Each structure stands twice: as C-alpha cells, then as structure tokens.
C-alpha cells in the first residue's frame, strides 16, 4: 500500500506512565522475586523549549518502575529518563534512594538501561531472568510496578490478548512488536516487568488513553535486541530498509511485471534515499524473498508457522548485519545481499530528546530547523499561517524530492517584537529557501549568510511564498543587544550538529 513508509504525524497513541491497581496476589514467589528486583525510579526531566529555543521548558518530576537484570543492570523506559536532570532509584522495602545514571537509551524502542554506582544498592537484590519464548494468546501474565503515590510494590494480572505491530508513541514514528495485555492499566508506573511463569516476557510501557483494559508491553524480542545492540558499548538503533511497497494481489499487476503464477511478492514503489536499501533495491523491483523466506502477495512471510509482515525479519537485526533479498527485476530473479547500515535521516521527524533545540537569532527573527517538537508547539498555538507547508514537507519532502540540496528545513519560528521587525509577521513559520540568492542547506549556512557584512540588506526568500523579506543588516546588528537584553537571551545561536 502506498504510504506505508513513515508518515507524520502518527495519530497519537497516548503514552503515559501506567499504574497497576493492587489486586490479590496469587503467586507469593513472584511477589518475593519482585521485591528483590523491581525498583522505583524518581526522576526530574527538563526539555528544551522548542517554541523559545534559548530557554528550557518547565521541569517535570515523576516516578516510574524499573527492574534489575543480570550484571547489575536496570531496565526501564526511555520516556521515563529522557531529558533527565535528576535521577534516583529505590528498592522495595528500603527507604534509601540511590543516585543513578542513564547508561544507554533507545528512543526508537522506548528502552533505557540505568546504572547505580553504589554497590550497596544491589545487596539483597536478585536479577530477573528472561523467558525463552513469548507467551501465547490467553496466557496469564503478571505486571509488577509502583503505582503513583505508592511506595510498595503492587501486582496486577491479565492475559495476553494480542501480539501486533503498533506505534511506539515515545518517538512518534517507530513501529515495533507489542505485547497487548488486557490488564486494567492506569497512569503511574512505566518500566515494570511483565512476568510469565516467573520470567520476564516484556516491559510495560504505554496504554491507550481512550480504551479500557488495554495495556502495552515491549515484548521479549525487542528487549533482547536492545541488549544485544548495546553490547558494543553504544546504542545504534534499528536499521531501516526504507522501501514502500504495493501488495501484488491484482492479477493484472502481476502479469504486467511478468510474474509467473507460482511467484509471489510485493512491488516496490518508493526507495527511501536514507534507507539501507537505497543503493540496492530499485523502484519497480518485486521483492520475492527475504533471507530465504518467501514473501506473499500481501507482504507477509511465514516464520515458525506464524504469518507475520516481512519487516519482522529486520526487527531482529542489528546495524551492519547483512540482509538477503531475491527480487524480480527486468523479468528475471536477482539475488541481492547488502549490509543494514543507514545514514542518519534528517528528514525523519522523530520526537527529540536529550538535545537542545538549535536556533539562530538576528534582528529579533528566530530561525530553527524543522522538528517534530516544533510542529507540536505550532499545533498548540492553533494551526497558524504557513503551517500547511510545514505539514506537507514533514510528510512528503523525501517522496516529492524536496530534500535534495539541503540537510534541514530552516523555519522562521518566532518574531521577538522590536521596531526593526514590525512588518514581518506574515513570514512567520515560513521555510527559508535562500538568503541573498544563496540556497540555504542548514542552520550554519543561514547564520553565516545573515551575519555577512558584505550586504547592506539581506533578502530572505521562503519556500512557496512570493514575497521576500528584507532585513536592513546594520539595523538588525544594532537592534540585537537590545532584543537579547529584553528577552533574556544569552546566546545568539545554538548551531548544534552543524556547529
């Protein structure tokens, strides 16, 4: 289906910290194991302010859950410890809180690993062990955690109601396997273990704001992939194949590409310029097999008797791993083998964490790269002017070819009112195309162009706007100290990556 690649924004699956109401506990041993391994996390986060990028948003404090696994490691959710300013952990039945640090964080699958330097913390703890396989439908599982306001461990019970691909709301764009549990789950304790027969099969992480009795856990394969990924001392993330495809159920389509009746596969209609497949797979290829599994006309493969989308093969792989495809190209089968190492994709708009927003200010005009976080601030301010352009580029810039010759879309995000910029409001939220005739690739280039002393006037052109913005270079320079003082700005710019 067209558009099966990342579209933005994914309808909000409201992520919240989930609380587990106390219920009668059946297995005392599970509770005992939980007391020795499931810990409470105290955290204060503070994120950069993407509407006024020279300052921070209001700090938030909260609590969550984590659990100890082999090697004195603590697993929890990335969304708990994202943008962390202050982090402590506490064991069940222990009043002491220990400082902790984030060792690894995986925002694309909402997982994090914490470390506690004080060895005393691990006294009388017992790491939880992972199960060998996922439970099946209707298997009874227990979820352990610390409900909001509660100091003591609680347990709730439910059954596995589905195993499916679902959006991970923390990053906003990623989809992975999810363990759906019918336990009544409420805001309060993300990061707790999902236990089946005494062993970990998942990690509770998000719920549905609009449905009762649906809770989501990050299942075993995702946890295991994370642990394997960080074995080399850093988290790389999921490889992205970067193809969009059309199922080939239609016989006319199949005969058009001269596929025989016994061949099945999917027709690639788009290859992402930042995906691992970009130099290997061509638009118009029919993907016949992945790593030896035959791909059906609807894009599924059969693994261990179960029918799953072929992307599941990629879900278990790491960066640098090789992948094999058999494709149908120019009426012949071709074998492809290539490594899954993606370049970073500046046009994939994930939620940003642990980073300060980039910006540049001159003459009271604040420029910043297009980010998902900035788009969220726009929606909060009631869909203002020029927002369609931003929405369009965030969804279609790659497919429609607008990404070429640039590394980011630079947006005029704010006007800090001053006589020098009084008549510039209608350019707000416009995307910079060029300055003084020079195409703008990134924020650094914009900063250089607008600080150049070669021009008396800077002429800024915006994508899709026919009117040009004219800045009197000298007047802007003179105005800046006053503007910075008025609005409490200490630095003219944060060029981030392009610095």
């Amino acid at each position, binding site marked *: 289906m*067209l558009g099966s690649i990342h579209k933005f924004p994914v309808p909000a699956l409201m992520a919240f910290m989930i609380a587990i109401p106390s219920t009668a506990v059946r297995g005392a041993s599970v509770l005992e194991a939980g007391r020795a391994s499931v810990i409470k996390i105290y955290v204060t986060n503070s994120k950069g302010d993407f509407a006024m990028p020279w300052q921070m948003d209001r700090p938030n404090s909260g609590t969550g859950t984590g659990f100890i696994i082999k090697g004195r490691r603590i697993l929890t959710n990335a969304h708990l410890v994202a943008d962390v300013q202050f982090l402590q952990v506490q064991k069940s039945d222990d009043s002491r809180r220990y400082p902790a640090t984030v060792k690894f964080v995986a925002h694309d699958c909402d997982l994090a690993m914490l470390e506690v330097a004080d060895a005393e913390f691990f006294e009388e703890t017992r790491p939880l062990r992972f199960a060998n396989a996922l439970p099946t439908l209707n298997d009874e599982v227990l979820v352990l955690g610390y409900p909001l306001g509660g100091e003591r461990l609680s347990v709730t019970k439910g059954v596995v109601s589905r195993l499916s691909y679902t959006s991970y709301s923390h990053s906003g764009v990623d989809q992975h396997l999810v363990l759906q549990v019918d336990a009544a789950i409420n805001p309060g304790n993300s990061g707790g273990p999902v236990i089946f027969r005494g062993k970990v099969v998942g990690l509770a992480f998000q719920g549905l704001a609009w449905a009762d009795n649906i809770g989501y856990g990050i299942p075993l394969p995702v946890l295991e992939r994370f642990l394997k990924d960080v074995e080399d001392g850093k988290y790389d993330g999921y490889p992205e194949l970067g193809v969009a495809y*059309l199922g080939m159920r239609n016989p006319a389509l199949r005969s058009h590409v001269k596929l025989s009746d016994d061949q099945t596969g999917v027709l690639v209609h788009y290859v992402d310029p930042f995906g691992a497949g970009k130099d290997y797979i061509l*638009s118009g290829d029919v993907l016949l097999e992945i790593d030896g599994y035959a791909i059906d006309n609807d894009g599924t493969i059969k693994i261990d008797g179960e029918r799953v989308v072929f992307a599941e093969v990629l879900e278990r792989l790491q960066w640098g791993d090789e992948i094999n495809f058999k494709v149908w190209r120019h009426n012949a089968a071709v074998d492809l083998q290539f490594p899954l190492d993606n370049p970073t994709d500046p046009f994939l708009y994930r939620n940003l964490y642990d980073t300060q927003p980039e910006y540049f200010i001159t003459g009271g005009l604040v420029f910043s790269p297009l980010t998902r976080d900035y788009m969220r601030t726009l929606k909060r301010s009631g869909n203002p002017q020029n927002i*369609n352009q931003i*929405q369009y580029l965030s969804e279609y810039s790659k497919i429609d070819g607008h990404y070429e010759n640039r590394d980011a879309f630079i947006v005029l995000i704010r006007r800090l009112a001053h006589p020098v910029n009084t008549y510039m409001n209608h350019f707000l939220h416009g995307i910079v195309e060029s300055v003084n005739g020079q195409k703008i690739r990134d924020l650094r280039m914009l900063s250089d162009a607008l600080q150049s002393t070669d021009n008396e006037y800077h002429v800024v052109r915006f994508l899709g706007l026919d009117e040009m913005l*004219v*800045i009197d270079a000298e007047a802007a320079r003179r105005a800046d100290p006053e503007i910075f003082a008025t609005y409490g700005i200490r630095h003219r710019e944060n060029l981030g990556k392009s610095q």
Partner: protein
Amino acid sequence: MKQCIAILMMVASLSRIGTAQEEIGDPGLVGVLVTHQQQNPYLPWKSGKSANRNGYGIFISSNRVLTTEHLVRNHTLVEIRRPREGEKITATVEIADHRLNLAILQVEAGTTHAIPPVPLAPRSNVDDQVTIFQIDADNDIQAVEASVSRIGVSHLSDAPYSLLTYQLLSDLNIRNEGAPVVKNGALIGIVMAYDSGTRIAVVISHPFIPRFVEDAATLPYKGPASAGFVWRALLDPAKRRFLGVDDIDGGIQVISATKGTPSGDVLRSSDVILTWGGHTLDNLGYYEDSDYGRLELSHLVKGRGSPGETVPVTIVREGDTMEIDLVLSGDLDPLALVPENVRAERAEYLVEGGLIIRDLDVFFMRARGGDWRSKVDSRLLHFYHSGGGLDHEPGDRVVILTGVLPDPINDGYHNFRNEVLTTVNGQHVRNMTDVFRIADEKGSLTRFTLYGTDIELVLDCNKITDANLRLSESYRIPELRFEKQPPTMP
C-alpha cells in the same frame, strides 16, 4: 436651517413608510423559496439530500427579480411568492454571479400581477436612513428601519472574494438573505448577511447592482473585473529603502502576478504600484474615491473597471519609475491550478475499473467540514497554496484519484485515495480533458501512475468493459463519465 428642514422631511417620510404600507406602495418584494441539492465531491455522480432555503427578492422589471447568488446556489427548483398571497410561481435563474453574490430570476410574463419595478438608487452615504423590507410570519410586508453605518470593502460571506458593501444597523432582526433595502422608493441594495448579535446587515449595493443589471442585459455576460495580481501594503521602511521608494509617500508591492492574465505578462513580483488609473495609492493600498472617499484599490478594479479595459498604472521597478498599461481580466478561477469552485458545481469525472478520477478543487477539500485545512491531505493542500512548486500553465489541473470502488478488477488497490495522477496509459495528464481524450483514443484506461511513484497500477484490459458494467450496476452509477462543454477562457 436648510439642513434641519431636510432632516425633518426625511423623518416624516420614514415614519410613513414604517406605519402605512398602502402609502409606500408595494415595493415589489417577493419571497424566494429554493430547493437545492449539492453534489457529493467524493462520489461525483451522487447528489446530497435536497434541502430548502428561503430568502427574498425584488422585482427590477415586470418579470425579473433580483436576489443573492448564494440563495439560489445549486437550485433544483426556484419559486417566488408575493406577500399576502399563497400562490407559488416557478422562476428560472437567468444569471447568477458568485463573485458579486447577485442573481436575476425570471418569471413567465403574466404570471404575476403588474407590479411597478423598483428603480435603482444612486449611491448612499454613511448615516443615511433606509428601509429594509422582509416578509413576516403572517406573510405580510414588514418594513425595518435602518441606517448606513459603514461603507467599505469587506469579504463576501459565502465566497473568497471581497467587495464594497454597505453595513446597516437595523432596528429589527432580518430573517433571511435577499431582503431589499430601499430609500425614497429606489433600491439601494440587498441584504447578503445579517448578524443578530450586532444587528448589522451587510448589503450588496451600488455600484454593483446597477452594473450587474446592465451587464446581464448584454450577452455574453462579462462579470466584474480582476486585476490578475496579488499585492500587499508596503510599510516596512527597510523594504521601502531596498525597493527605492523611501522618498515617495505611497505605493503597494506586487507579490505575484497571475500567469495567463495580462498582468502576468506585465507585472513582476516586487514592483511597487504608485498610481492606478490616475488615482494615487497610499502605502496601505487606499485611494480617494469620488463617490465614497477613502477606499481600497480592489474597488477601483471591481467597482469601477471592467474586463478588457486598459488602465494606466505607474510603477517603480528596481528604482525606476515607469508607466505601464494593464488590461483587466475577468474571472480568474478557470486559470487556477486548483479552482475554488465556489458554486459547488458538479465536477467532471470518470469512473474506470472502479477508480474514481476527477480534478481537484477547493469545494472537494472544503467538503471535509470545519477546519478542513487540517483534515485534507497536506499534499493536495500544498498544490492549492503554492501550485505544488510546479510551473503550471493556464488550463492545468491536479487530476486526482479520489478513491476506489472495490471490485475484483481492482483487488489490491482499494486503499488508494486522494492520490494525484500523473500519467494514464503511459501518457502525461494535465487535466480531465486529457483523461477523456486518452479514454476515447484507447477505449479504456488500464494503467495509472501516481505522483511520487514511478510504478503503474494496472487493470486487466480484457475485463474492464465487464467490470465497468458490473460497477455501474452494483454501485448504481447512472453515468460512469461526466464531461462538461469545453470551458471558455476569459
């Protein structure tokens, strides 16, 4: 002293109008009853439920009634009814102009009693006392006193156009649109919109009513003029210096000129317009109108110009002052890549193998309801706002696949909707005319490329005729194809 007498006389005459119907005579007021039905933009062979709209009109000749365009939009039946009478008389719409929100209805001669038509009044002034006529619950004429509170350019209520209108402050609520406004027995205007909160009625008035009536009498109907460019006030001192007009007082900046119009050939972005037809423009785009005082430039174009007329214009381009001649255009909507289709006219379409193909227009997008801009696919909206960055020619449209009616022939394609079509049977398509032409040449359409991809959706050419029959039967599609007469370019 003279002034005092004049006012006293006016008050006296007004009170007569308000109290004694017989003495004011019959102003030729009618109720207009409209049954209307709108097309379904997604399934363009389908119509929505029919509904009724009531308003008013006024006889401007023995068998012609003036009312608003909006009232009769998408009509299936128009009837008029005289006050104090129950009989409904069928009327036809002679002409309707959505850019002026005016329409003329015609009734068969002899079907109504002879009513002396109302003469058209010259302009009014702010503070003039006027009478709005409407029909009350007892089907009797009601005269409502009102005064002109503002005369200026404002937006039409049901179309994205602006026009010089009168605003009236009325004593009583105005029930429906189309209510005539009369002063001294002559028609000043008709009510387009009324806000019961502020008691303000917005009225289409002079000079548009006399011009419209005159224009309608000579075919082909020309309609109001358009300048063919977009402009903005030029206030920013830095920009004025940059454009070399810092030592001049007024002037506005041209933002863009519409391709396919005379302005598109003559004007450039960042030209500064200083005078228009001898009128000096200030930096907000206002001029001194001999009838109404300070007014916006658009009135010089729509209220005083007409299509085809040449206007001398003074501009500053790159620091040089020059005189140019601009020829005014008519309706620009047919030139647009994505037309507004304010009148919600049925779109041309083709249903082939269950694929529903039509041109994109704003009516299609607006059908998503309130806040439609945030609901419509951002790429379609992008084509509307900026032409998709395409260098399009007049007559180009965005051909879209609005959806797929499931059938065995299109299995696997059911989820496609709101996609832009770039080629059909391997040929580039610029508009529905191209699509129809290819369909006629090839007999059927079997290959389709969507914008942003280079693969084709393929339908079985041996099965398509049967599939079309089956689809038209099972989905009750009376016509799989609707093609209008070729449009005439202004």
